[in-house]
């Protein structure tokens, strides 16, 4: 009895550990690699101004029937905008906080207004989905507001090919790519910004 009990303790411990892992939050690390955009670069010096709140944004939410989810978004969001501006302009840099930038032509400040996601358990579909809503502000180097617009983005991923965390990561990355596409299109149609960077 003693020997059998002694042998069963490690097994019980392992089972308990596995059960505890199953109950913990599902962690999603969103990738930070985005393709270089294919476009003619505008000859302008542009800066991306990101706040600490934007760069470190994490979304944590308990979903009924789908457990707790913890999604690290800030670094991926910052990487997406950085790489997008690198591809759109001949010179781009990153500003943190409120530091002035009189030498640059254009300062782009993204604000993440909302992030939402959905799992198959919630939507009764086969998809994981992610939505972003941004508010984008464009200033000149002196701090004058040139333009401002909202940007929404959506991405989804099939649940059947990937596990939950991987599928939600994939959906979030798709939404970030959609944000980049939306930014490129909207920027090209903004007459005030076009005339400012082409001066």
């Amino acid at each position, binding site marked *: 009895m003693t020997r059998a009990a002694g042998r069963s303790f490690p097994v019980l411990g392992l089972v308990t550990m596995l059960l505890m892992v199953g109950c913990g939050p599902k962690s999603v690390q969103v990738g930070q690699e985005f393709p270089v955009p294919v476009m003619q670069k505008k000859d302008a010096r542009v800066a991306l101004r990101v706040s600490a709140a934007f760069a470190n944004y994490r979304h944590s939410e308990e979903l009924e029937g789908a457990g707790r989810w913890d999604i690290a978004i800030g670094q991926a969001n910052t990487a997406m905008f950085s790489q997008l501006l690198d591809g759109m302009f001949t010179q781009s840099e990153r500003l943190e906080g409120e530091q002035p930038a009189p030498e640059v032509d254009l300062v782009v400040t993204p604000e993440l207004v909302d992030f939402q996601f959905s799992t198959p358990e919630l939507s009764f579909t086969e998809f994981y989905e992610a939505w972003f809503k941004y508010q984008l502000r464009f200033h000149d180097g002196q701090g004058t507001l040139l333009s401002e617009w909202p940007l929404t983005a959506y991405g989804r991923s*099939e649940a059947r090919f990937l596990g939950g965390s991987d599928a939600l990561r994939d959906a979030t990355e798709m939404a970030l790519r959609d944000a980049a596409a939306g930014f490129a299109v909207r920027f090209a149609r903004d007459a005030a910004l076009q005339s400012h960077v082409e001066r």
Partner: protein
Amino acid sequence: MSSASRRAIVTLALGLALGGCVSSKVEQLRESPVTAAAPGSGHGVVVLGRKQNVGNQAEAGVVACVADRLEGGPVTVLSEADFRNGMFPWFEPRTAPQDPAGLARLLADSAVEARVAELGVRYLVWLDGYTSDKDRGGGMSCAAGPGGGGCLGFVWWENQAEYEASVWDLEKRTAVGRVSVDATGTSYMPAVLIPIPMVARTRSAACGGVADQLRELLIAPE
């Protein structure tokens, strides 16, 4: 191995070997002729799933299946991911051209045109459609006890796979043609002790039908 286990393995293998019934209707429409690939070189082709329709989109597995079956001979296939990354952000759901006129507008940008040439893609295949459950019926009950267990009953279900592929010529900026497949299959699962699934491979039949017709459309007669 006990005789019961052997019997279970044999019936499972039999079930896998027996497929359900699939019937397919395939149509091809050629809108403009294709030019033969130069000797020693091939036609670069990419198969993309249409993602503008939020409700139902061609499944990633079907897009990959069509691409795999197209590869070979004069057809060389670039993966969907490599093409979308290489053309970023112009083939994302919100920016992808909806028709050949939109494609011509996109390719008017010299940077985009140069990237297409660099990727070596001549033909773009847009795949749209999905596989859905149409109907199901029957019933089955299973029970287990100290002396063993088993199932008794019969269930069936019907799947429909409807896909349409549109082919665009990136060099001429025109539509080459369209292929559509409508495959319907009924799967059965009788159970006398052990359930034996006889699954109709509807999606696979649709994939094969689309790929075969696309090869015919893309390979110019010598």
